[in-house]
């Protein structure tokens, strides 16, 4: 039975036996792998990607004649350890039928001690792991020998890693492996992105070539919206569109199979789940909740329920965005703004896996403008205007961590490691000065001139060999490898001991004993707090506060904002190319009558006066992050002329500045309110960037190994080595102001939190636009949501509802007049 090229023949036989035929793109990948090429395989949805690379690897590297299991040959990186088990199962599936003595193993933070011990003796032929666990393997002194037989690395869900520091960590690890084996094949699997060429370049680092393979051509994609019964003319975000709950229930009811309901935040997921159960108590047990703060066991149960089809509906967050190949469903709803095109397409791909069925996602608007966003998303998807993910540029905190990792993993010589690090995309422009600084930071602390006394993390031996000598430092480093930032979170447990999940410390600190709150779809009562655990008991159903998680609110993507602007421009002339926009005609009528609908080449600014004071509304459609920057910039520039204080509010469409005194905005604009001159300095000054950087430093400090979370099970013994990142920030700022980690925190604030490049582009567009300044008698449909958002910051929920109801009644009356 052993003909020479056998794995290929056996693969064909295995496929045929199951009634499958290989897709052309799979054969394409096999061909590339057979020729030793690397590449990136991308597709909007689903199946086939795994076997494209896996069978390609087996065809290229497996030996049918081998008697013992192959040594570690394929490394399979997955961004979520939750996906590791599913992946390993998929990889194992064909092995027996192919008659290959390959072993598949998993190594993640969840891997048991006995498994680790087994792997310490011998790694499996294919190892499924995470970027963090791979870095940990690299800290082993014998790392190089253990990876000696490695022929291929597969990076699954590369789009999830590309734009963040975990991706940078992956790049560094790949550079290490590629140095040991220059012929190493690297394959990325990715969802559709706007910058696929860049995604490939980042994956391969300095190495040229590499194939870009497009996966299965997407099935027909339908993006539609659930139409509300009545159109609000004065939309406001925040009441969560629970008036849509009945329509959502009807959708779930008429769907055969499971429905996924995606929300944008964990709080929204909790609220929607509760809203559904309130209306359909009989659904308890057949609908479920899934988000990243829930206990793993709970999430596993939900995922299992989706797999075997026993769950009717699951309300979830991006926690279910991954694992596309494993959990197909019948119907997908997006609750609230879609925010981005790529994400919506990805979510749509979860439905319609049966042959001949279309992928469909239905947007459920929580206020009427979200109807425009649904239509905009459809148009952007059709035009393939898909978001890009920008890879980070040379984050020094990750580099500092990597230096210690490599010092542990056998040690290094500076020039050699610099070459290797520069081979990555992230550090290709690393200057000698930056390198020397990072090196000095782990060797002396501070800079070479201002060496820190008694400090030594990495020691330099004779001949310039950098290693870690102290076992305690090694142990602590291994405990803190990684770049995932978890907020200071508290474990939630029942008094009886069962784990429920995690909430942020800041949320718990606002609760008093006996307070009720909503979590995991239950009303819980806080009983006591001990160390980092909050003990609760079930409370009677009823009211409870909903935890807020501090994850930054995602802005509307540029691509989507652009499509929204275009739709508004056409609505201005009564042209409604999409039904969702046509439904909003009553809203547009009021907007046009009281103010104007902005044309594509216009910047709309409204001013109005209410009992609250003098309002300035500006609508650049730049996404909320950009608007935060612009609001502060405008307020700061206006206050230079005459000091005053403003209240602010932002959303994805625009921002509001409210002042007790009237301001001459015409004059301010003429005097350069929108000027790009000194933009960076002004943005920094206006935002109290120091404070933002101080907060940002949390992540930097954790990755660079300053803040240590402690060993599991013995938090106390390291107490005297713990200090908050804010404290570190202050100490560095005072006593070592040249520290480059401080500068990095500042840059991250500008580029990631404030999206300065996007702000610059939006400001340039505003400058080129025709200014339309309208004084309105009262807040318009575009302005109203901004006012509500500001009020929500100030008052409790009940008070907000009252005030908004009053404001609405007045505006509706005026609109009807």
């Amino acid at each position: 039975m052993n003909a020479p090229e056998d794995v290929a023949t056996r693969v064909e036989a295995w496929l045929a036996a199951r009634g499958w035929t290989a897709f052309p793109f799979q054969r394409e990948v096999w061909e590339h792998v057979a020729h030793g090429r690397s590449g990136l395989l991308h597709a909007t949805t689903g199946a086939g990607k795994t076997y494209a690379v896996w069978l390609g690897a087996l065809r290229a590297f497996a030996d049918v004649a081998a008697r013992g299991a192959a040594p570690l040959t394929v490394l399979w990186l997955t961004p979520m350890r939750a996906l590791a088990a599913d992946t390993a199962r998929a990889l194992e599936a064909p092995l027996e039928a192919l008659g290959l003595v390959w072993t598949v193993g998993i190594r993640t933070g969840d891997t048991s001690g006995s498994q680790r011990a087994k792997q310490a003796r011998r790694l499996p032929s294919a190892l499924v792991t995470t970027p963090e666990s791979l870095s940990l393997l690299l800290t082993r002194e014998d790392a190089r020998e253990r990876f000696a037989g490695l022929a291929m690395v597969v990076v699954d869900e590369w789009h999830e890693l590309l734009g963040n520091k975990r991706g940078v960590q992956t790049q560094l690890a790949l550079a290490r492996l590629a140095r040991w084996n220059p012929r190493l094949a690297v394959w990325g699997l990715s969802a559709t992105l706007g910058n696929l060429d860049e995604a490939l370049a980042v994956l391969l680092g300095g190495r040229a070539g590499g194939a870009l393979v497009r996966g299965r051509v997407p099935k027909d994609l339908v993006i539609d919206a659930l139409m509300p019964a009545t159109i609000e003319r004065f939309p406001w975000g925040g009441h969560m569109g629970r008036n849509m709950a009945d329509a959502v229930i009807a959708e779930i009811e008429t769907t055969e199979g499971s429905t996924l309901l995606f929300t944008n935040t964990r709080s929204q997921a909790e609220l929607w789940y509760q809203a559904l159960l309130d209306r359909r108590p009989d659904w308890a047990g057949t609908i479920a909740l899934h988000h990243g703060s829930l206990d793993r066991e709970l999430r596993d149960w939900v995922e299992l329920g989706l797999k075997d089809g026993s769950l009717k509906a699951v309300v979830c967050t991006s926690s279910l965005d991954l694992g596309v190949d494993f959990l197909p469903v019948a119907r997908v709803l997006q609750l609230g703004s879609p925010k981005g095109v790529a994400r919506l397409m990805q979510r749509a791909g979860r439905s319609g896996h049966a042959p001949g069925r279309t992928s469909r996602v239905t947007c459920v608007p929580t206020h009427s403008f979200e109807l425009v966003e649904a239509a905009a998303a459809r148009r952007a998807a059709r035009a393939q205007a898909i978001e890009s993910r920008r890879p980070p540029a040379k984050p020094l905190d990750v580099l500092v961590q990597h230096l210690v990792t490599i010092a542990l993993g056998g040690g290094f010589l500076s020039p050699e490691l610099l070459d290797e690090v520069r081979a990555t995309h992230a550090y290709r422009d690393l200057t000698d000065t930056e390198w020397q600084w990072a090196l000095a930071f782990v060797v002396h602390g501070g800079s070479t001139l201002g060496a820190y006394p008694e400090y030594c993390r990495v020691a330099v031996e004779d001949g310039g060999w950098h290693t870690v000598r102290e076992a305690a430092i090694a142990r602590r480093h291994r405990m803190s490898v990684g770049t995932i930032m978890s907020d200071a979170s508290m474990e939630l447990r029942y008094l009886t001991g069962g784990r429920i999940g995690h909430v942020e410390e800041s949320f718990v600190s606002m609760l008093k004993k006996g307070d009720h709150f909503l979590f995991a779809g239950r009303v819980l009562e806080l009983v006591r707090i001990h160390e980092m655990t909050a003990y609760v008991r079930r409370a009677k159903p009823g009211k409870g506060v909903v935890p807020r998680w501090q994850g930054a609110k995602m802005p509307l993507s540029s691509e989507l904002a652009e499509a929204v602007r275009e739709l508004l421009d056409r609505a201005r002339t009564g042209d409604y190319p999409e039904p969702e926009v046509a439904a909003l005609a009553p809203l547009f009528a009021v907007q046009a009558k009281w103010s104007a609908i902005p044309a594509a080449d216009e910047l709309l600014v409204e001013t109005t006066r209410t009992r609250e004071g003098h309002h300035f509304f500006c609508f650049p459609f730049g996404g909320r992050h950009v608007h935060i920057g612009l609001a502060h910039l405008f307020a700061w520039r206006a206050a230079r002329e005459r000091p005053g204080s403003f209240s602010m509010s932002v959303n994805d469409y625009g921002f509001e500045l409210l002042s007790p005194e009237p301001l001459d905005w015409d004059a301010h604009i003429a005097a350069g309110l929108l000027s790009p001159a000194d933009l960076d300095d002004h943005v920094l000054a206006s935002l109290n960037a120091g404070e933002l950087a101080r907060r940002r430093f949390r992540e930097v400090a954790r990755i660079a190994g300053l803040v240590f979370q402690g060993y599991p099970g013995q938090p106390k013994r390291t107490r005297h080595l713990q200090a908050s990142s804010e404290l570190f920030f202050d100490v560095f700022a005072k006593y070592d102001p040249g520290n480059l980690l401080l500068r990095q925190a500042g840059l991250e604030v500008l580029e990631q939190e404030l999206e300065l490049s996007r702000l610059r582009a939006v400001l340039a567009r505003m400058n080129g636009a025709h200014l339309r300044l309208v004084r309105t008698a009262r807040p318009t449909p575009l302005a109203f949501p901004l006012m509500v958002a500001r009020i929500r910051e100030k008052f409790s929920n009940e008070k907000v509802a009252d005030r908004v109801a009053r404001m609405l009644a007045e505006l509706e009356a005026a609109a009807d007049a």
Partner: protein
Amino acid sequence: MLETELAGERVGLLPERALLWPREATLFVADAHFGKDAAFRAHGVPVPAGADGETLAVLDTLVARHDVARIVFLGDFLHARAARTAATLAALAAWRTRHGGLRVLLVRGNHDRHAGDPPPALAIDAVAEPHRLGPFAACHEPADCDGAYALAGHLHPAYVLRGRARQAARLPCFLLGAHCAVLPAFGRFTGTHPVRPAPGERVFVVAGDAVMAVPLSSAA
């Protein structure tokens, strides 16, 4: 300085995060945590030096500005055993030499138990808590002391002031109760821990160079 009355004695709450008892020319200082940065460095965590120097300079200023004959450290004088480096001890010795006439007392705290007493050359009397001084009981950990008003540290108390638009400022504070006052941490390289005042407790925050009373609603 903000003057108030505790246990029938007039005291001053200093924005330098210390408490002055003028009648006895006594300065109370909690949680100096000397050598904390050195301890971090010794364990491979890079922290620049400089905090101790500033902490001592602030003490110099206070001694120069006010009539101080005695300093009482309310625990956590040295941060850890690894804090006893030559540089730390030399800086402390130099400071002590500058103030030879001062009486210095240390009420041992939890960190002192691990770090050990200050070297004898520093001429600091180390005692156990509670240590009676007139109507006061000098402590490290907040406690109810029979017949005495406790002055303590340990908590590193801070109060979070919330303003509009989700603005919040976390400021070190004095927490003054019926039987016990908790001082903010004095060391320049120390963190803070937010406290929630119990009914009847008063909070004074340190905001820059001022100490201000926080108006608390009775419900809080």
